[in-house]
């Protein structure tokens, strides 16, 4: 896709007019000495080193099947499906956690140890593994570690693990497509910012400062070429 087609895709409808005075940007740069393309070019701006690193991380496997089974259960306890959006597993959170612990190795031992700690607890309390325990029994353990301000001191290792798992699950979910749907996220697309909607200004009790109103960016004139008088006043 060339630059012009690219921009055509970007600026649709009313946005399309006037952004470029001639509708055509700078030409591609001329050839470059001592700058051959390394590898097969970039993808979303990745350098060849980044592409190789990401591919190697994806290739590697950290969590065992048993650990993955526990993770799948736990992330959905933390972020379940509700009437707004799907669950953490619907959003692919376990795969995200699998990647991030390889990308940030400081997570590896706390996560592996934390998942094992759940089995130790289940064994001590019920004589079985965490996943063999009943739902009520599992929730009993989770309740002991999910509330940092109420947890007993003996549970502090579990609390720390659950805090980390809550962080990774929440961030994994809310940075996914499912999470953006949940947040009703409206940004990351071309638009024209013309200030806070009037009803929101009213609700929060704000008014724009009078003195700036004449100079704020005006959507109606944003496509015309800027010109100034000698005093630096914008006249075009």
């Amino acid at each position, binding site marked *: 896709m060339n630059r012009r087609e690219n921009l055509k895709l970007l600026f649709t409808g009313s946005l399309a007019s006037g952004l470029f005075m001639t509708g055509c940007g700078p030409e591609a740069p001329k050839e470059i000495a001592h700058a051959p393309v390394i590898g097969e070019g970039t993808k979303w701006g990745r350098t060849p080193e980044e592409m190789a690193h990401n591919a190697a991380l994806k290739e590697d496997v950290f969590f065992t099947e048993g650990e993955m089974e526990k993770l799948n259960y736990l992330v959905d306890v933390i972020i379940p499906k*509700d009437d707004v959006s799907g669950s953490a597993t619907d959003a692919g959170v376990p795969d995200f956690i699998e990647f991030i612990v390889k990308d940030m190795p400081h997570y590896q031992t706390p996560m592996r140890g934390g998942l094992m700690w759940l089995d130790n607890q289940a064994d001590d309390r019920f004589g079985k593994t965490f996943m063999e325990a009943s739902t009520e029994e599992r929730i009993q353990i989770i309740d002991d570690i999910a509330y940092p301000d109420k947890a007993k001191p003996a549970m502090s290792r579990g609390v720390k693990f659950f805090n980390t798992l809550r962080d990774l699950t929440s961030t994994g979910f*809310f940075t996914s497509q499912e999470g953006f749907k949940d947040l009703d996220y409206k940004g990351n697309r071309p638009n024209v910012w013309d200030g806070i909607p009037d009803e929101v200004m009213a609700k929060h009790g704000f008014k724009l400062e009078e003195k700036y109103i004449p100079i704020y960016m005006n959507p109606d004139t944003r496509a015309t070429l800027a010109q100034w008088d000698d005093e630096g006043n914008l006249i075009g």
Partner: protein
Amino acid sequence: MSFQINSPGEAYDVIIVGSGAGGGMASKILSEAGFSVAVVEAGGDFDPAKEEDRTQLRFPWESPRRGASTRLRPFGDFDAAIGGWDIEGEPYTKADGTEFDWFRSRMVGGRTNHWGRISLRFGPNDFKRKDIDGMGDNWPIGYDDLKPYYDKVDKLIGVFGSKEGIYNEPDGFFLPPPKPRLHELYIKKGADKMSVPVMPSRLSILTKPINNERGACFFCNQCNRACQAYADFSAGTCLVKPAMKKGKVDLYTYAMVRKVTTDAKGLATGVSYISKVDMKEYKLKSRVVVLGASACESARIMLNSKSSVHPDGLGNGSGMIGRYLHDSTGSDRMGFIPDLVDRQKYNEDGVGGMHVYTPWWLDNSKLDFARGYHIEYWGGMSMPSYGFGFGMDTIRKHIKDEFGNPGTAGGYGAGLKKDIRRYFGSMVGMSGRGECIPRYDNYCEIDNNTVDKFGIPVLKFNYTWSDQEINQAKHMQDTFEEVLTNAGAVLFGEKAGPESKYGLHAPGRIIHEVGTTRMGNDPKTSVLNSNCQSHECKNLFVVDGGSFVSQADKNPTWTILALAWRTSDHIVSELKKKNI
């Protein structure tokens, strides 16, 4: 113009080392004057309008780490700047008990590809601080010398803002500023109660087109990812590439300059560089050499360019190269505004950065530190990426439910999910960026024991903060707490205290390092004259932040651009007069 590889014997009029703000501006002005120019860049080519280079308008799930930072991209996986504080094969060292973190971007346009676009002119006081507080040194030039160039930079590159008539925050030729965001109005409400000014920010982002080569901003809030429409300033898209299109400019990429070559008289004859592609050394010749490799990299090149005429490094008879290294101070605080919980959703992206800011507003003669700081603001409904949703083990207890009942720390399940949803968009933060006192004792030098992977001796840093900067950071923390509290915010974490130097970042972290080849009228105490020309090598010039005598509490880019233009005009004049 078609491209030709220059044989070693063929000379350019000017070689420019580095393609960032200073090098980019020099390439434009010198090529427009008709001179042949070689721009030598240590990194690769980069053009954000090319689909393969695009990180703009991507969603977090397009990154396997959801936009988290990496060694190569410390500001996140989508950040345009390639390099960072820790580059493979390009080390630097630090003297025991000192700190300095050196951020480099190896690419066309350098660090201008991701910077905050905060474009503040230095004011009249900023050039003459010694006259005011007796500390440091005055610049050999003043605001009036640079004003015409600031004006020209405004018109060439574009900056939005509001005319305020504040003496030390000079107005320029501004484009229209964007209206404030909701959290910015809360901050202003808090700041108003303590008479801290909050006014439209000044960023080099086109809210209107200024020419037919660059588009206008489409408000995605992602200038740090570099803009496909060239609606923000970066040196590659706005200076180097246009210069290549119109003039006799050759761009050498993956070319790591080892030294400036000199003749028997000690004059510069060109540069010697190592190609990162084949690891071989090449030489280029020119009548004039312009260094714009960044304050520390240019100092390194000069220190490594020893000869019988320049035994301590090129133009270093004064021993001042590397001395007076200084970075902005920085300290931050964040919290969230309960009145913003459960807010109405709309596209709040705006431009890439704050729509309002606070310029320095107090009189230092009544304070226990000599120089000021400005405050940058952030928060609101910016796009979630890695890290969003963290901290519910402490934050959630402050998120009240619909009936006003306090929340519970931590937890799980539908209630947690709902609270994070309601919390989105309520976070605010602020960052102080201040002026430090340049000191002879803060410096970089050549480490005689260490080379990089190209065999080039590396820099060793010696840098400590003084009470001046620490007291300033304390004042920042007090101000932040008061503004946030007045805005109705719940503050996160404990207030930074003396054990962390009040949250003062390590030197180098704000990436405003300047001063290593400072200008002055006395060749014994400065490296460059007031035209950024070496006192001791008349055809060598420096156009990056190295020439700064002091850096003000302003971001340095706009001043680098203005100075580089002024220096380039001087080079044109001297070349035409055959003085160099």
